[in-house]
């Protein structure tokens, strides 16, 4: 078989139900942003008699009170959702996997770079954000943004 040639396959047979179902399930649980995660603690709160549901800024305090009834993992999830409300709109799996598969991707197109330079003569070129691993979106990579690669000609310190 030639190298790297996958067989023709039917996506439906392999993943069909799985993919769609997975997406819907995730969406249902995490959609509605913080509201969904806020539901769980307050439902738990009722038996403890803590009264009305706390406001967003009191959420963390409530989480700590409910640590006995909410699993630590769920408490951590609530913390994360509170910090990043937009997280998890897409299935959690795919985002990480995509990022993982794209590791190492660096883009530099001299044509783009020169055109952008010409267009933005008077403006400052937007430079790459802290995360250099993402596919270039709205910034134009410059040679300075690409980390230098050079092979190590130095002997390993384990051997010295």
């Amino acid at each position, binding site marked *: *078989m*030639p*190298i*790297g*040639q*996958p*067989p023709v*396959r*039917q*996506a439906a047979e*392999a*993943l069909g139900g*799985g*993919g769609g179902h*997975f997406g819907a399930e995730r969406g249902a*649980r*995490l959609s509605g942003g913080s509201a969904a995660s806020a539901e769980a603690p307050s439902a738990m709160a009722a038996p403890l008699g803590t009264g009305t549901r706390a406001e967003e800024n009191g959420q963390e305090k409530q989480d700590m009170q409910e640590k006995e009834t909410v*699993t*630590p*993992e*769920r*408490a*951590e*999830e609530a*913390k*994360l*959702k509170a*910090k990043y409300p937009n*997280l*998890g709109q897409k*299935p*959690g*799996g*795919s985002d*990480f*996997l*995509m990022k*993982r*598969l794209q*590791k*190492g*991707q*660096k*883009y*530099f197109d001299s044509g783009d770079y020169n055109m952008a330079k010409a267009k933005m003569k008077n403006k400052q070129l937007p430079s790459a954000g802290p995360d250099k691993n993402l596919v270039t979106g709205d910034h134009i990579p410059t040679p300075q943004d690409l980390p230098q*690669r*050079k*092979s*190590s*000609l*130095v*002997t*390993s*310190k*384990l*051997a*010295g």
Partner: protein
Amino acid sequence: FLGAGGGNDIQWCFSQVKGAVDDDVAEADIISTVEFNHSGELLATGDKGGRVVIFQQEQENKTQSHSRGEYNVYSTFQSHEPEFDYLKSLEIEEKINKIRWLPQKNAAQFLLSTNDKTIKLWKISERDKRPEGYNLKEEDGRYRDPTTVTTLRVPVFRPMDLMVEASPRRIFANAHTYHINSISINSDYETYLSADDLRINLWHLEITDRSFNIVDIKPANMEELTEVITAAEFHPNSCNTFVYSSSKGTIRLCDMRASALCDRHSKLFEEPEDPSNRSFFSEIISSISDVKFSHSGRYMMTRDYLSVKIWDLNMENRPVETYQVHEYLRSKLCSLYENDCIFDKFECCWNGSDRQVEIFSIIVMTGSYNNFFRMFDRNTKRDITLEASRENNKPRTVLKPRKVCASGKRKKDEISVDSLDFNKKILHTAWHPKENIIAVATTNNLYIFQDKMN
């Protein structure tokens, strides 16, 4: 704890540490793989800079009966260089992901080393004599004028200082679109597999220009991608059987006799999950980072973020044993997600097995944070936490067990979860195949521990 008494408990002592002392670690010095060869005489490390360092155990000194031979540098070479794939605009790291030794067949040693894209077969050979006494050449290599030769002599081999040479004998390239995470040599010693995120290829050690694709989980539509391959290994005895693990916490066992393309598994190992416990983190922490068969091949061990699981190949629906490595991290998942530690890939290993005496795979070892590493004894169900630190480097002094205080009042000598250094991670450990000697890699140092003799 192991070592807390009892006839068969191992008492671990510091033996050696390799690497620089300074805290400022260069990227290239980060150790990325550690592997003993089949006899245990050689110990190889790979690093992020693409270099391989091989240590050799000294022959046992009869007068120093209280310690086994020390490991000293035997050979070091640059295995992989950084590359840039201009067509795909892709940087190819030189980091050595895995090293696997071939069993020794002749005087030379052979190992496979791989980075993200290319596997190389290296031959490591010794040269301890050189020919001298040529008629037409001087000792420094200059040619002699033939007219000045008046007598003839027979060149002979004379001893010289040992020189260890490493040369690449095979380069297995261009077969992986995604990043290679595993290589595994078949028990037939002729073939091996290489696995990337979505595909597994079968190679013959002699043939570099082609390989067979045996697993392909790439969906036709990448939007439907839900899981990737995280590790793969051949069965130690059945040359037709291999397993691969996934980012969703499943392990598939495949039989190459069933079909050429092993997309359909023969067995699927998966522990059912309690849906009420599911959280955003569930899938991430269930991702398996390593899978290792036991020496007999009856069991396999998997490592996910928080635990080590032992599976009986005859039972697919749940592991037979689960050991918690650092359960106290479950209440820190939010921070561990933010600092990316939740994606750390810890490896695991079995204790050595002396083939002459039937010793079952009974102890498993894996790393954790704060330069701690853990061992679990399957028979006694006891576990121990040890630390790889230069502060403990008094030879023949038994290592003191460590304890992490999860919550509540911290006892003396315990360390609280919040004090753990998450930059000090032990991802790679290896156990000598025959003796109680272990190699533990911190970020840039290699520690060797032995059990206390006498």
